[in-house]
């Protein structure tokens, strides 16, 4: 705050007034700066989704598997990758190279080689399962390996590839994921602090429309083409007979092949490596919801693995010796207290539940209609009543004759 120099000293009350305002302003800035501290980044997750099936969509599965391989190579473990594939390429009867999936016509790299752990395969890749993975609302029987167990310190990479259009993405030729459904799921994830930052990469036609409805902060999204543009495949493998990789993913992989898990290339360099003349479409990215500058964010923040570590400087020595000194009396007291509290809590709980049960006590009709008790007798009675009514009306009309 610069005060202009005056010829004469400012008047006393004005000075006092200004002096009294100053601490208030200082307080104000400090109180507004006391926002809850953000969690630190401590793990990375990847959700890789291939939304196509059938032989002619070979390249989509090759895209997803290539990215899976890259992400694993850079350090994200299988337990933090959710891979959703229709998985019908490798053992497809039309595959000349059984159990092998390639992303290049030189066939140098077998993507289906070793250690591929597919979490959702075949008909499990549905919009509902995808949204359940994102929001975390699974049935209780779903195993941990199929859940996205991220927390507020996680960075999540979400990669989707397949056939898409204006504001939608086609799932398994059967249903669609709309952009507002995706935005809704991301909003719910943000509310439950299921991620710290989210990077969405979409490789479909008109990809940028899929994330047009996003509103949650901390989300960075890049699509392989803008609205009205198509995304193209890279090259055709005449041996296999179909295109084996898409252009956007091909150039992404070319960027990552040069890196290893110790590199610190930035996201900016990744995004700038997409050349519209090579992609034949414009790779459009959306960073208005993302706070950090792209040239400060290393790609390993999303594509690699990070473990924040703290050295353990001392052991809790004497722990075992302390066992004998503890007097059993106080331990028994603690256990008793704990048991009493538990009893009280469980008694309260059962009281509450008894009250709730009383409210839901079923009366006759709900018993029949909802639980299907005595349904046979009700049907019998119904038929009998109908017959009686029929007889009455026939008699009436007979009388009229």
């Amino acid at each position, binding site marked *: 705050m610069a005060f202009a120099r005056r010829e004469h000293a400012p008047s006393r009350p004005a000075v006092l007034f200004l002096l009294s305002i100053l601490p208030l302003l200082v307080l104000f800035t400090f109180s507004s700066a006391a926002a809850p501290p953000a969690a630190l980044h*401590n793990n990375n997750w990847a959700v890789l989704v291939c939304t196509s099936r059938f032989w002619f969509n070979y390249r989509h599965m090759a895209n997803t598997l290539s990215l899976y391989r890259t992400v694993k190579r850079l350090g994200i473990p299988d337990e933090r990758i959710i891979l959703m594939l229709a998985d019908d390429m490798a053992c497809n009867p039309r595959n000349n190279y059984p159990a092998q999936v390639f992303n290049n016509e030189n066939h140098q790299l077998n993507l289906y080689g070793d250690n591929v752990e597919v979490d959702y395969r075949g008909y499990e890749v549905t919009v509902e399962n995808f949204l359940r993975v994102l929001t975390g609302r699974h049935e*209780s029987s779903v195993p941990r390996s199929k859940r996205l*167990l991220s927390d507020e310190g996680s960075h999540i990479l979400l990669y989707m590839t397949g056939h898409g259009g204006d504001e939608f993405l086609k799932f398994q030729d059967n249903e669609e994921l709309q952009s507002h459904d995706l935005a809704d799921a991301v909003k719910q994830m943000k509310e439950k602090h299921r991620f710290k930052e989210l990077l969405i990469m979409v490789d479909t036609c008109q990809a940028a429309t899929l994330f047009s409805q996003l509103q949650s902060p901390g989300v960075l999204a890049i699509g392989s083409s803008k609205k009205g543009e198509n995304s193209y495949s890279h090259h055709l493998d005449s041996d296999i007979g179909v295109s084996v990789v898409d252009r956007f993913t091909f150039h992404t992989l070319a960027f990552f092949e040069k890196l290893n898990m110790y590199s610190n290339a930035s996201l900016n360099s990744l995004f700038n490596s997409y050349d519209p003349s090579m992609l034949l479409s414009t790779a459009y990215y959306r960073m208005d919801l993302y706070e950090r500058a792209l040239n400060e964010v290393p790609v390993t923040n999303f594509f690699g693995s990070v473990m*924040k570590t703290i050295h353990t400087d001392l052991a809790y020595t*004497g*722990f*075992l010796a302390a066992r004998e000194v503890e007097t059993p*009396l106080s331990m028994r*007291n603690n256990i008793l207290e704990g048991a009493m509290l538990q009893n009280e809590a469980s008694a309260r709980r059962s009281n509450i539940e008894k009250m709730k049960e009383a409210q839901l006590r079923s009366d006759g009709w709900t018993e029949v209609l909802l639980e299907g008790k005595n349904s046979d007798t009700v049907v019998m009675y119904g038929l009998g009543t109908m017959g009686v009514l029929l007889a009455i009306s026939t008699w009436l009309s007979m009388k*009229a004759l």
Partner: protein
Amino acid sequence: MAEIAGDETPPLPSSSGAGESSLYSSPPSPTAPAGDQPPPPPRTTKPGTKRLVLTASVFLSFLVGLPFLLKSTEIHRSPLPSDAIADLSRRLHSHPPSFPRGLHAVFLRSGPGSPASSLADQLERAISTQPHGLAAGNISVSVTVQSDGSCSSSSSAAAPPWRCGSVTAADSVRGDEVFDELLHSALGGGGGGDRMKVYTVVFVESDDEKGTAVVIGKHRQAWVVGKVDEAEAVSLVGKVFIKYFLNGGVEEGEAGIGKGEFMPVGSDGNVVLSFSLLNADPNDWVYDWDFENIGERMLNPVVEALRPIADINVESQVLYHTPKSSFSHSDDKLGGNVLSMGDIPFFVNSNEWHLDTSLSATGRSKVLQFVVYVPSARECPLYLQLPDGELSKTNAFISPMWGGVVIWNPPGCSLGSKKTSGTQTKMSSQELMETLEIFIGQLRQLFGLKANYHAQGMDVTTKFLVSEKGFAQWELDLLYRHHACSNLLSCLATLESLSSLVQSLPRMIVMDEIGRQVELSLEAASLAQRNASLGISDSSAVSATRARALAEDAFFHPSISSISYASVEHYFAIYMPFFAPVTLHVLLAAIKELKRYKVERGKYSAFLASQATTS
């Protein structure tokens, strides 16, 4: 049917025909003179009402049945108590959960000095001038002075019992653990779990020339031994109280308790501690351990101590062929292979270490991995080098919210002789217990406390007594408090977002179970808040954990799905194809019958009138 019955006179069909023609008698042919047709024969009988009654009854039954249809096809939405949620939110924000605590200072003196009440005032002033750090809430101060066998205490309503004369200054030389137990029993043995927690700092005047020393006990007391003047004693007491009993030894701005990454409890209140012994190369040697007996026995008190904040399960396994994924370089000066701190983040080789094999971990529980890594012969002995060049004493590190790793070099390692491959040896119980001590330190670190305290606390030598529960009672109080506060706030946030989600989807089915879980969660949350205001940290932590678990269960209920609710258009599309044509026909029939009846009535009354005039 009434026409065929023919009860009515033959003129009826024709009159009905005429009636119909009269219904449709819009005059397209005004040329049709009245004289073309003979006037319709008069009606001699009262028109019957059967047809009208029939059609009207069908129509009325449709009308009567409409509310039943609407009721039976409405979306079942269990009402969520949003006012109660708003009320809880208001209460928590206006009165954040603050646990009132008490500081009780005891001065064991041999000579005269200031009275207890003035000491109490001094102490209060000393505390209020210092920054409280993580502390919040009211602190009530009371002072007891014991000199020459008689005690006087500053008047305070909730003064904890101090059995006068049971402990004297001379007892302090008998050993720290013994003195700790004596103090504990003198203060009433720590009974009464439903009262505010009171922390005691005893100042023992002694003539030793060793200088002042502070010892922090296992329960809720600490003592200061030394010969200092009163003002300094008072300020020392205050500092000990604030630095340890209120803040847990964590400085301002340091990462520790209270930050989200140091609360490794799953959202359903479960934690699984998974202990793994990793043999990097079984060709060199294979190690096994006796964890089930020794380890689980040692860990039982820790599990019990942490019960209010988490339900802990302990599992163990032995894995083979688990190399690390970072590179170590050999250092002949130190006689082994060395890993620097920069290599540590890449140490855990998640591709080969299949650690997550827990059976008891449910979808929302947290798994903490504690790993003992046995290096292969090539890289053995493996040491961890700190940035200042020193070797680590523990060879261990943690990763917050993941777990901890200890690198254990097998005893035959430094001899350089390669044993016959595949020999299976058991880790000696001594080694296992030492490793367990490191694990307990790591568990403390994962929960935000320090693994163990250095001897230099403030400016005086400080010693900390080690508890067999892994945490001292005052540390447990801190943990309970922080977890209770944060669980309450997180439960409230979850309930609010659930409520706004349900309101934003007006046609989504809300099952009864969700409503019940929300109500139980609110109950538990208010109970937790009540206990917090009374200062009972452990039952408050229990209720807060339960409240959060229930709120998360309700929010993550699998039936809440934004894509499968029935919109109004679906509702119309299902029911309109049947009901629209049917009601149209029924309505038209009723109207037609009504009009016909009126016409017949008119004819009949005309006939009656003509009868009346002719007769």
